[in-house]
């Protein structure tokens, strides 16, 4: 019964794999819950900043702020790609890398020089492999990115933008719509696109002045955009992993069904054959 033993071995191995993928699915589900909470908790801050900026912003003021300057041509552009450190999340990272490649070739097509920054082992690994020069890279950010992490990532680029060493900065991240929808997105963070104007403008008492408040808040806004990108990517990773692992678990189940059926059929065939042999033998004895 050589074939039966072989099948038994495969059944064992697929069972083992299913155990692992099922555990990973459950871990991702619980991590996803916490990551989702962080995405939601980041919303009030972002909304407050955006509403204040749109209250204070006016095109006349804009010309005086280096973070709002609109360069005529983008000669040197910063690109920050956020990916995850770990794989086994379906097409999550490859989608981000694809989006980044599209953005890079578009920018380079316009004649821009790229300063490339990578967060996460997956994106870093790919772009190092294809031989792109990488300005900075971080692989130490966990599932729990902090606002301080975001500041570390973007403050240098903001400084370079102000001193006109960079003409634009993009971030490529996974936008978190729902656990099942985490599209890779490229967003321009510098120059700052002022949030939508609101209909009613209030007369505020401003301390010290609209200009001073804007110049203080614009960097906070840019940092917050990056922070949100980090948090959303972290949540998206868990969502993608949960889906991938659920599919893997389901597939392992289907595979097990087929293997078990084949095994049982082989076993039955063998028993039938043995009986036939015995009966045949007994018949021969009667002579």
């Amino acid at each position, binding site marked *: 019964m050589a074939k039966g033993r072989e099948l038994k071995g495969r059944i064992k191995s697929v069972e083992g794999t299913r155990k692992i993928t099922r555990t990973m699915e459950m871990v991702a589900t619980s991590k996803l819950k916490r990551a989702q909470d962080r995405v939601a908790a980041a919303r009030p801050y972002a909304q407050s900043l955006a509403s*204040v900026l749109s209250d*204070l912003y006016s095109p006349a003021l804009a010309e005086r702020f280096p973070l709002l300057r609109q360069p005529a041509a983008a000669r040197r552009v910063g690109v920050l790609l956020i990916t995850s450190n770990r794989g086994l999340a379906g097409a999550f990272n490859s989608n981000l890398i694809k989006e980044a490649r599209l953005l890079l070739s578009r920018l380079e097509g316009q004649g821009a020089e790229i300063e490339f920054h990578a967060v996460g082992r997956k994106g870093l690994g790919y772009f190092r492999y294809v031989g792109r020069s990488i300005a900075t890279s971080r692989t130490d950010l966990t599932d729990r990115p902090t606002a301080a992490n975001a500041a570390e990532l973007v403050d240098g680029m903001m400084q370079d933008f102000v001193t006109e060493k960079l003409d634009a900065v993009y971030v490529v991240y996974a936008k978190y719509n729902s656990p099942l929808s985490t599209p890779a997105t490229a967003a321009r963070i510098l120059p700052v696109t002022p949030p939508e104007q609101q209909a009613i403008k209030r007369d505020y*008492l401003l301390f010290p002045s609209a200009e001073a408040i804007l110049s203080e808040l614009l960097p906070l806004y840019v940092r917050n955009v990056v922070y949100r990108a980090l948090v959303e990517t972290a949540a998206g990773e868990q969502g993608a992993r949960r889906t991938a692992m659920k599919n893997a678990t389901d597939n392992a189940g289907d595979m097990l069904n087929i293997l078990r059926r084949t095994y049982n059929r082989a076993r039955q065939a063998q028993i039938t054959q043995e009986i036939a042999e015995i009966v045949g033998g007994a018949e021969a004895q009667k002579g």
Partner: protein
Amino acid sequence: MLKVSVISPEQTLYEGEASSIVAPAYDGEVGILTGHAPMMALLGTGTLRLSGSAGEQRFKVEGGFLQVVDDVVRVVTERAAEL
């Protein structure tokens, strides 16, 4: 009563009512009572104090701004911690 929320990038630290607020503005402390005119002020570093019926609550804040509109006060700060 004033409706107060204290918001940091990572979370909303406080959401509730207070009868008066003392906040560390960029150039010194600023006090807010009900009926305050709409205001926006930059914050410095220091202690934010909310007094209400349940006593006083204190937060350490660093940077950001304070917005007052129709007795709704939002303290939006880069770094905040409850004391």
